[in-house]
């Protein structure tokens, strides 16, 4: 990837419909069973484009090339067995891994995670310690929100802490939290700031059932408010309740299927080595 273009397009200070100041989408009123079916293909230009994206390490691809487009207000899931390459694809989309081939474009420009525009538009929740270990939970969230110019920060952060059931831990250091609470902190850090695209790597991992229900409702609200989402998951509830489409990551061919088909594939037994 040699291009270092600045992404262009609409302002990223957009607030999702119904969102509180700062871009935090409101929690759903109920957390019941997810809506089934009705894949909603959004119209309009693609926000994110993966064009023959080939990813891997030391010049060896880990999966077949991926081609898919994600529009604003659309959720696309990456599914596949452990080690299929879902996280590697996400890391390449986030600009953390040089693609072996193909391109990733955000609003028509090749992604460069080092630029302000990319960092302003894209929020990532990956399986890594993306917090300042010596700042408390609330301080971390507040700095992220203030850094993005969110107004009424204290209220926004407190609301997000409550939504993630972290209010009691607001003044603790992240290292004092359980793994599930840390996961919720990462989600809160992504949701407390404005974003046009959410990249999530198995966000359901380590969450308790209540946390998973909350996650599904929050992500549905995000999607409905116009945020584009690309997420890797093994969770069939999340797939059926959230995904508009899914990409099956595989060694031979990566194909786009509907959410129901993806959920069926996820529950199929995986052949052993």
């Amino acid at each position, binding site marked *: 990837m040699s291009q270092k273009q600045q992404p262009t397009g609409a302002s990223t200070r957009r607030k999702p419909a119904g969102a509180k100041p700062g871009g935090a989408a409101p929690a759903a009123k109920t957390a019941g069973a997810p809506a089934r079916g009705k894949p909603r293909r959004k119209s309009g230009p693609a926000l994110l484009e993966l064009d023959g994206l080939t990813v891997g390490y030391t010049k060896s691809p880990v999966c077949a090339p991926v081609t898919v487009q994600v529009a604003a207000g659309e959720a696309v899931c990456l599914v596949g067995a452990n080690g299929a390459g879902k996280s590697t694809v996400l890391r390449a989309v986030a600009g953390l891994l040089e693609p072996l081939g193909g391109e990733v474009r955000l609003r028509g420009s090749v992604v460069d995670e*080092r*630029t*302000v525009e990319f*960092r302003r538009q894209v929020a*990532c929740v990956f399986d890594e310690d*993306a917090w300042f270990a010596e700042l408390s939970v609330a*301080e971390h969230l507040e*700095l992220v929100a*203030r850094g993005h110019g969110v107004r009424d920060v204290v209220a926004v952060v407190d609301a997000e802490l409550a939504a993630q059931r972290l209010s009691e831990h607001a003044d603790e*250091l992240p290292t004092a939290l359980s793994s599930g609470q840390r996961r919720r902190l990462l989600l809160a850090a992504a949701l407390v700031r404005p974003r046009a695209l959410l990249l999530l790597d198995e966000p359901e991992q380590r969450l308790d059932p209540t946390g998973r229900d909350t996650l599904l409702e929050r992500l549905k609200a995000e999607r409905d408010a116009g945020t584009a989402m690309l997420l890797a998951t093994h969770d069939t509830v999340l797939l059926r309740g959230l995904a508009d489409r899914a990409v099956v990551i595989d060694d031979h061919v990566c194909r786009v299927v509907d959410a129901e088909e993806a959920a069926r594939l996820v529950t199929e037994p995986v052949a052993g080595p």
Partner: protein
Amino acid sequence: MTLQLDGDELDGDDLPLPGPAAGEPLPTRAELVSEAAPSRAARGLRTTVYDVYTTVLQTGIGGGLLLGASGSLRNALQAGLSSTGDGPGLVSRTSGVLTSAGLAVAAVLVLLGALCRIGPVSLGTAPTAWWTPLPVERGDLLRPVLRQRALVSAVTGAVICGWAGSIAVGTSPDLGTAGFLSALGGGAALGAALGLGGYALVTRPAITAGTRAVVRTGAVLDALALAVVAALAVSALVGLAVDEVAPTALVVPAVVAVVLAVVALLTAGARSWRDVGATSAVSLRSGAARLGRLTSSVLQADVRELGRALAADATGRRRRRRGASRVPWARGPASAVWSADWLLLRRQPRRFLTAAAFALVPLVVAAGTGAPRGVLALLLWLAGYWAATTLSEPARSMALVPAAARALPVSQTRLPLLRLVPVAVLMAVWGAVAVPLAATTSGLVHGETTGTAWWAWALLGAFAGPGWAGAALRGALRPDPDLSRPQVSTAMGSLPPGAIAAVSTGPDLGVLVTVPVLLAVLSRGAFPLLVQGQVLASAAAVGLGWWYAAHRARKIS
């Protein structure tokens, strides 16, 4: 679900359970160790010979360096004595004894603080994970290790105090070999007792309390060491009058105090020996994790990581008024970065104390020894770089979490420059105070004319400060030595590739920044041309430090 085991197909219910059958006795510690011993002993003759050779060689080199340093220091002290005339000989020797004893006590306190934080037995991560769940009385497992560590502590104390004793008493030209050996032996014995008892004392918090008590005790020991050094510095500054105090008057109270201390410490040691089996797994794991960080920081020649590992308190909780903003002054990306760095710095007041102490070093040396002006510039270089390093540590810790930094809308190129700003401001203040102070005590401030006035030196220091901050920025993101490749033979012995770069990256820019200061010291005046040169040198250091940090940040992320 079925499973193939030795050709037989087993159901889950048929899987053999590990461990002794019901009614069988549990293995003893001796049995467990004897089972593990053969695998640990499978080393081969070549490895053993190499280990012995390396140990002998390193001991020889270390001993030679120690003896050489002792001789040089003794000669220097004797030269100082002979130049002071009749009366002050006794005075200077008394001061030498007090200084040596004070430094030895401070060194032992620092060592004990480190041992306290590691824990009573400092097992390491793997043995801790293996031992803590074993169905064996924990005291049986820990006592051999406790004995070994206590021995190391006693030997270390003996070496430090024996060396200090030999230096302090050996400065008397008419003492003779017997007197010298007595001082050496007495110091060593005292040091061994202090080391042994002190080690036993600092194991108590880990055995009977928790990780917080361990951190607290370590901090107290560090504070005591700092207080001893500060007292020495103050006595050097104000010329504390010890002229009237005869050494013999101090002997009896000192002996009584030492005997009482040794008895108390050995009593604590006996209690620790008795209670070590009560050490919790939490305490052991905490100490093991800390030891792992310490080991890796030593291998990577990273003294800042060493300090972090010793000071880390992962269970902290920050208090705030409910509903209040934690960082109300942040108003955008840049101020968010500054706020985060400042927040961390404010929570670590010891960093300000350390920077202040570094500012005093050139002053104390210049006042106490009348060191040559070249040495003064050298000390300013070291003090400036280390002060900047200390103050930029929070920024560095932030820079090492690139995933969190990406959450802020700041480009990767601009981020290191933003992080540099608070440190540069603080260092400008530091330089504006430290440089004129050192110049004053060296007799370089004399009058109100341009170049020799106090304010001229302050201006020079204020412009040098940001340059040292730039050098510290370069040093902050330097690459670690490559421990995965074969070591390289050098004049200093075998070193991992990149070890020299790890030590020199950062201080090299500090040298550039110090050149105008050096010229000012040598020419006895901070003249306008030198101040202009300082501006240029500091600007170059900031630019180079920023470029290097942006380049390295890309690799780290």
